[in-house]
C-alpha cells in the first residue's frame, strides 16, 4: 500500500470515527432520556446491587436472598427445612434448631419475611419468617445470614398471619389460620362452632433478639389470615384479617364465602399489657420449644416451655374490636402515616380503606353493629375512609411508596393497581405474569418506604420461561415506580413460592456482614484450637476425632483402629481466619450430609461404619490450588479386632 493511500485511509477513518462519535453521542442521550430498560437492571460484573431482596422460599421452607435491580440469587438461607448443602439439620450442632413439641421436624412451609425495625424503619439487623404448617417464627441474623432462633407457637392450628413487627420490635404478631380446639383435644369435627377457637399471639423480642411468647388472645373460631402492626398514631395497635366468619369446616371455598363482610380485628396491645400487668390472664398449660443458636459455642440449644398467658376478650373490655370488611379479606396493610388500614378483600369488588382516627372515634361513641361472640363489631360506615373502585379482581395485598400512593396486587386479574391515598382514585395499572400474590416495595410496609421499585411475586409463570417439565418456576418481576407510569424491567425465577418479600438498601446490611468467626472466641466443647491438639479418642464404642482443617490438609488425615459398630464423631474445627474459606467434609458411605465449616467454627459429623475396609474422606468445597489433595483415609476393622487407635498427618 502506498503512503498516499494510507494517508487517505487514515483521514477517511478519522471522519467516520468523528461521525460515529457524534452519532453514538446522540443515541446515548436518547437512551438516557427514554430510560433504557436494560441499563436500569444491569449491574456490571464485579459491582454490587443497590438493594437486598429477601423472598420467602414457600414450601421449600427456606429464604432466598437476591440483589436488586439485577435479580441475581446470592444465597438460600436454611430456616425450617434441612439443607444438606449447608449441613443444616444434619450436623449435630444444628439439629436442635428443628426441634418442636412433635420432635424433630425436617420441613415446613415458610411464608412471610419481615425485617426488624427501629422507629418503624427497617434496620437491617434481623429477618423474621413464619412456619405455616407447624406454627413457628424464626429469626435470621443478617450479619451471618443464618437462622439464629426459632420459637414454636402454642395453641395454634397453623401460623399464617405472621410475623409482622411493631415499630421497635416490641412484638412480632402471629395469628392462627386454622382454628382448632384450644387446648387441642379429641372432639367431632362437626362440633366446630362449639369447640374451635383461634388465637392471636404476641411474641416479644428482647434487645439481643431473644424471642418469647408474651401473651395470646383467645378469639372466635374464624380463619385469621394476615396482619400488620400500627405505626405513628396507630402504634400500640395491631390489625388481623379474618375470613370464614361462617365457621365452616368443610368445602370452605363455598361455605366460607357466604358472608358479604368478614372482619379485620383491631387489637389494642398496649391495653393488653395493662391487663397482663393487672393479672387479668389465665395461665394455660402448653408445650412449645424455643431453639437458639449460640454463636460462641457454635451449636443450637432447645428449651421446652410449658405454659403461656392467655387473655379472653370477655375479661378484657377495650382489648379487641372487629371492623367489618368485604369480602373474605386476605392482606391488611397500614400506610406509612399509620392512619389508613387497607384490607384486600379477595372476593370484594372494591378495596376498603379503614381510618384509624375514625375507628377511635367510633369506639368512643360506641357506634357498634352488635357483636361477634362478645367482641364489639364497629359500624362499617363509621370506620371506612374510602373504597377504591375499579381495583382489579381479587385484590390481596398493598404496599406504599411514601409519596402518597398505594400499590395493590390483584390475583385474579394478574395486575398491580396504583392508586392515590385520600382520593382513592386508580391512577395506573400494569399486568403481571401471572397470578400475583404478594408484592413488595423496599420499606413498603414501614414508616419510610424507599420506593423506586415494586416487586411482583407471582404464583404461576406458564409461558414465561423455558419449560422444566410439569413443574415450572415461580417468579418475581421488577417494576420501576419512580415515574408516573409503572414500567416492567425484569423477570427472574425464585426459590420455591415467593409468598412475600422484604427489601432494603444494601448498605444497611453490608456494614454488619461478618467475615469470619474468631478462633479465640470458639467455645465449642469439642474445639481443636491448634493442629498439635488434633487427636482421636476412644470411649467404649464411641470414637471422637478432633480434626482441624486448613488449606490444604486435614489433621489427622490417616486414622486406624476404627471398628464396625463404632459411632464415630468427627469434630472438625476450621482453623482458617480468612473470608470466604469454608472447608467441607464427607466420608464415603456415611448416611448424612456433608459438613460445610465456616472459618473459626467447629462442627460435628456422625458416622456409623458398616463394613470393614478403607474409607476415603475429603474436602467438598473447592478451597485452594491443592483442594484435590485435601483428603485422607480411615481404616475400619471388624468388630472385636485389636487394631489400636492410631492417627497421623505428615511423615
Amino acid at each position: 500500500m502506498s503512503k498516499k493511500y494510507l494517508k487517505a485511509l487514515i483521514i477517511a477513518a478519522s471522519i467516520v470515527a468523528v461521525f460515529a462519535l457524534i452519532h453514538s453521542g446522540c443515541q446515548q442521550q436518547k437512551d438516557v432520556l427514554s430510560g433504557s430498560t436494560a441499563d436500569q437492571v444491569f449491574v456490571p460484573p464485579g459491582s454490587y446491587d443497590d438493594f437486598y431482596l429477601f423472598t420467602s422460599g414457600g414450601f421449600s421452607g427456606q429464604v432466598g436472598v437476591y440483589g436488586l435491580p439485577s435479580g441475581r440469587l446470592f444465597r438460600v438461607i436454611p430456616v425450617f427445612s434441612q439443607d444438606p448443602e449447608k449441613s443444616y439439620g444434619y450436623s449435630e450442632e444444628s439439629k436442635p434448631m428443628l426441634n418442636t413439641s412433635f420432635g424433630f421436624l425436617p420441613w415446613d412451609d415458610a411464608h412471610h419475611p419481615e425485617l426488624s425495625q427501629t422507629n418503624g424503619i427497617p434496620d437491617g439487623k434481623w429477618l423474621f419468617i413464619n412456619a405455616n404448617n407447624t406454627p413457628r417464627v424464626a429469626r435470621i441474623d443478617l450479619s451471618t445470614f443464618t437462622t439464629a432462633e426459632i420459637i414454636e407457637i402454642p395453641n395454634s392450628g397453623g401460623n399464617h398471619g405472621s410475623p409482622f413487627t411493631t415499630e421497635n420490635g416490641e412484638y412480632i404478631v402471629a395469628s392462627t389460620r386454622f382454628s382448632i380446639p384450644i387446648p387441642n383435644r379429641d372432639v367431632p369435627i362437626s362440633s366446630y362452632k362449639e369447640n374451635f377457637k383461634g388465637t392471636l399471639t404476641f411474641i416479644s423480642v428482647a434487645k439481643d433478639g431473644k424471642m418469647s411468647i408474651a401473651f395470646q388472645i383467645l378469639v372466635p373460631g374464624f380463619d385469621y389470615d394476615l396482619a400488620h402492626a400500627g405505626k405513628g398514631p396507630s402504634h400500640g395497635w395491631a390489625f388481623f384479617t379474618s375470613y370464614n366468619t361462617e365457621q365452616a369446616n368443610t368445602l370452605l371455598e363455598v361455605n366460607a364465602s357466604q358472608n358479604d363482610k368478614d372482619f379485620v380485628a383491631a387489637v389494642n396491645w398496649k391495653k393488653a399489657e395493662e391487663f397482663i400487668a393487672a393479672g387479668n390472664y389465665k395461665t394455660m398449660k402448653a408445650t412449645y420449644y424455643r431453639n437458639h443458636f449460640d454463636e460462641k459455642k457454635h451449636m443450637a440449644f432447645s428449651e421446652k416451655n410449658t405454659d403461656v398467658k392467655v387473655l379472653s376478650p370477655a375479661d378484657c373490655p377495650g382489648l379487641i374490636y372487629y371492623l367489618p370488611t368485604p369480602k373474605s379479606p386476605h392482606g391488611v396493610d397500614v400506610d406509612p402515616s399509620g392512619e389508613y388500614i387497607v384490607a384486600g378483600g379477595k372476593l370484594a369488588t372494591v378495596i376498603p380503606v379503614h381510618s384509624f382516627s375514625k375507628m377511635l372515634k367510633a369506639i368512643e361513641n360506641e357506634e357498634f353493629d352488635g357483636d361477634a361472640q362478645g367482641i364489639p363489631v364497629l359500624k362499617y360506615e363509621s370506620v371506612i375512609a374510602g373504597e377504591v373502585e375499579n381495583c382489579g379482581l381479587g385484590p390481596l395485598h398493598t404496599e406504599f411508596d411514601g409519596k402518597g400512593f398505594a400499590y395493590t396486587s390483584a390475583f385474579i386479574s394478574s395486575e398491580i393497581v396504583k392508586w392515590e391515598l385520600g382520593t382513592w382514585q386508580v391512577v395506573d395499572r400494569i399486568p403481571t405474569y401471572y397470578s400475583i400474590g404478594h408484592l413488595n416495595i423496599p420499606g413498603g410496609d414501614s414508616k419510610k418506604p424507599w420506593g423506586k421499585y415494586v416487586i411482583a411475586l407471582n404464583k404461576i409463570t406458564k409461558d414465561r420461561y423455558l419449560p422444566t417439565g410439569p413443574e415450572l418456576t415461580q417468579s418475581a418481576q421488577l417494576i420501576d415506580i419512580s415515574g408516573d407510569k409503572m414500567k416492567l424491567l425484569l423477570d427472574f425465577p425464585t426459590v420455591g413460592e415467593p409468598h412475600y418479600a422484604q427489601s432494603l438498601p444494601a448498605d444497611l446490611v453490608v456494614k454488619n456482614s461478618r467475615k469470619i468467626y474468631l478462633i479465640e472466641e470458639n467455645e465449642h466443647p469439642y474445639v481443636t484450637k491448634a493442629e498439635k491438639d488434633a487427636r482421636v479418642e476412644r470411649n467404649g464404642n464411641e470414637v471422637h476425632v478432633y480434626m482441624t482443617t486448613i488449606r490444604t490438609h486435614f489433621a489427622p488425615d490417616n486414622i486406624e483402629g476404627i471398628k464396625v459398630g463404632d459411632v464415630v464423631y468427627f469434630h472438625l474445627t476450621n482453623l482458617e481466619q480468612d473470608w470466604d474459606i469454608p472447608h467441607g467434609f464427607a466420608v464415603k458411605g456415611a448416611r448424612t450430609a456433608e459438613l460445610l465449616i465456616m472459618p473459626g467454627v467447629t462442627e460435628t459429623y456422625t458416622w456409623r461404619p458398616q463394613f470393614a475396609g478403607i474409607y476415603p474422606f475429603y474436602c467438598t468445597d473447592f478451597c485452594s490450588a491443592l483442594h484435590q489433595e485435601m483428603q485422607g483415609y480411615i481404616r475400619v476393622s471388624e468388630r472385636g479386632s485389636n487394631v489400636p487407635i492410631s492417627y497421623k498427618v505428615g511423615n
Partner: protein
Amino acid sequence: MKKIINIVYTDIILISSILAIVGLMITACGGDSDKSGSDEFSNVQKTNPSGLSDFELKHGIGPIKKELKLGPIDEAKALEGEKIFESKCATCHKLDEKYTGPAQRNVLQRVSPEFFVNMVLNPDENTEKHPHAQEMLLKYNMQKMTNQNINVKDALSLLEYFRVLDRELKQKSTN
C-alpha cells in the same frame, strides 16, 4: 467455584509464566538458585515487575513501611507469640521441617523482621507482587500463604517469639 479461587488460578498462570521465563534466563546463564533446597531470600533486585520500592523489595509490602527499631526481646510477648504460632501458623509451618510451608525456626536468618511482619499481615498482596513470595509460592506447590487475619499487635508478638528462636540458634552456633 469461588471468585477467590479464580483469582488464584489466574495469578498462578501469570506468575508461573513470569517465573518460567525468569527461571529460563537464570538457568541459561548457568545460575544455581536453589542450592540444597534452601529458602534463601532471593536476589530480588533483578526482577521487579510490580515496580516495588527499594524498601518493599527488601522488607515486603504491608503496614510496616520503615525499619523497625528493635529493642531487647520482650519475653512476655514472645510467650504470647508462641501461642499464636501454635494456633494460627503451626497448621502449615513446623519449626524444623518442611510442611505445607517452609520450616520456620530460622526465618529471621532468611528474611528481615520487617518482611516477616509484612508477610504475616499481608500474605495476599505479597504473593501477588513480591518476587520472593512468588518464588516461595512456586517452591511450595502453589500453596498461597493463608491470611489468618492476624493483627499488628499479634504479628509483633510472633516476631518476638522468632527473635527468641533466632537468639537460641545464634547461641548454639557460637558454642
